[in-house]
């Protein structure tokens, strides 16, 4: 079983568009949308959710207002400024302390040191995982509630589920849409992958961020290809991207032209391949290069 992860460094380079197109071209595969902060793959693969479950990322502190004596120790100890005196009144005080869930890091300090043990540590549902049946095969995806930061764990869970299903159905390929950036969720989505495809764009920011993402995949010693999307926006920088790839030992997967069809496909809720045009032709070329490495 092979696992291809598509990443981008910078956001908005067309990573999800390329992922959907490759998913349309490959066969016998499972898809995983590991870009859990901006989970958009489901919008262009025409699927229906067939299974879902809560994702419990960790625990958060919750003050039991009835038992709070408003001593303020929790507020004094919290390094994340998550505790404020904005809870309801109770029998002994006008206002109690409350933990703002968006700011709570789940460290447990207030839970441990509340003199009257009025702070609970409760498992916190930070979103849900979903399985959809799509025209291109099964898709594992998720939706996180706003402010949830621990998506590395969710990425690990999605990939694991995808791997299990692929093994069970004897499918040979997992195509995963990774996160932008170089942070924790990206690392979680590329560790153990067989191959990485980096989708970049010919802009100063694109190149600036590609360099970091390139270093990342090399450090994990994962074979990686690079393609440049919307290459004709700046042909000089597109050439610089290719040159960077050559110098850094990244394989060249080709370039994809700027094409209105990409937007049309998204509006129609289909992949670029189903909206035939110049970019679709280019993506087929990218797929050939990728498939040869798998």
């Amino acid at each position, binding site marked *: 079983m092979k696992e291809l992860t598509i990443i981008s460094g910078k956001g908005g380079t067309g990573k999800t568009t390329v992922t959907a197109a490759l998913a349309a071209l490959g066969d016998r595969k499972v898809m995983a949308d590991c870009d859990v902060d901006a989970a*958009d793959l489901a919008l262009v693969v025409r699927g229906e959710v067939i299974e879902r479950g809560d994702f419990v990322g960790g625990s958060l502190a919750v003050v039991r207002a009835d038992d709070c004596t408003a001593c303020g120790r929790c507020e004094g100890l919290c390094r994340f400024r998550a505790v404020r005196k904005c809870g309801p009144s109770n029998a002994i005080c006008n206002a109690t302390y409350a933990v703002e869930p968006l700011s709570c890091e789940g460290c447990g300090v207030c839970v441990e040191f509340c003199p009257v043990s009025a702070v609970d540590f409760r498992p916190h549902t930070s979103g849900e995982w979903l399985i959809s049946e799509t025209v291109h095969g099964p898709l594992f995806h998720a939706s996180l509630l706003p402010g949830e930061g621990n998506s590395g764990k969710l990425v690990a869970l999605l990939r694991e589920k995808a791997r299990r299903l692929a093994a069970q159905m004897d499918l040979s390929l997992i195509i995963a849409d990774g996160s932008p950036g170089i942070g924790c969720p990206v690392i979680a989505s590329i560790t153990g992958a067989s191959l990485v495809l980096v989708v970049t764009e010919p802009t100063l920011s694109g190149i600036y961020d590609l360099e970091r993402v390139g270093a990342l995949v090399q450090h994990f010693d994962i074979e990686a290809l690079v393609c440049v999307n919307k290459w004709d926006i700046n042909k000089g920088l597109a050439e610089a991207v290719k040159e960077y790839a050559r110098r850094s030992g990244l394989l060249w997967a080709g370039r994809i032209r700027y094409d209105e069809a990409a937007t049309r496909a998204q509006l129609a809720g289909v992949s670029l391949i189903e909206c035939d045009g110049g970019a679709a032709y280019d993506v087929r070329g990218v797929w050939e290069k990728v498939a040869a490495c798998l």
Partner: protein
Amino acid sequence: MSSHTHKEAVPYNAPAGRPALRIAFASGKGGTGKTTVATNLALVAAAAGEEVTYLDCDVEVPDGHLFIKPEMMSRREVTAGIPRLDMALCDVCGKCGEFCRYSAITVIGKKVLTFPGLCHHCGGCMLVCPVGAISEKAQPIGSVEEGAGRGVRFVQGLLKVGALAAPPVISAVKEAAADGLVILDAPPGTSCPVIETLRDSDFVVLVTEPTPFGLNDLAIAVEMLRMMSLPFCVLVNRARPGATQVADYCADKSIDIIAEIPDDRRIAESYSRGEMIIETVNGVRVIFEGLFERLCDVAGAARRGTRGRHIEGAP
């Protein structure tokens, strides 16, 4: 709750030395043009005589400097506390390791190990140690650089490679805010660094594009801002005639669309070269001048409406 409730536009032209007006630029997904809008607006505001401070809070990948091209004048380190063990006092009771939710301090056999890269700097191990064997030492987690370019005071945070905690670096960037107009460039998404950036802002502009992806991610960002009780509006980038999904959504949710920037290949090309599009593409400057004027109105009014009010979390 959003800007539309503050339509009684009071002109924003308070005298010098007034408290800062803090406007943050955020987006549900990356690549919508947040930095483009924030940097060009900064220049337009400076040209209008504003005292402008640009805070690049996207500390993982700060790109604002590629456009404003500031000359950096100072740099200071940002640190956070990590545990320091005094083995003369430690009796290896294991309480610190049991307490730490992040495995940043772990007892293996008769050894106590610390992993600064996993530490969230909560201070819990120090508090929980019964013999006072743990103190804190300062660990560098990033830096804040300050400079100026194009008439704009420029501040950016840089998270150190391998460091986990972006919020303290963002918080240090925000401390550099001055009087006048403060523009905050937030990281994309809705995770903790974004919340740290937006917290205490007077007004938020959500930059989106009129595509299904843009709309999907915008809706999540809107939910986050409503949870934070922050006034906001939407700016549609790469607007195309006939692409009304985002406009329909905003109308339905009573969200003000403050400006539209047209989908124009020349803008994309100019951006790719690290240029300021107000200077290179005809018709763009006037859009930003209009945006600036409207923003001063709605954000100034929103500030008067929200100052002194607690920002409440979700129930």
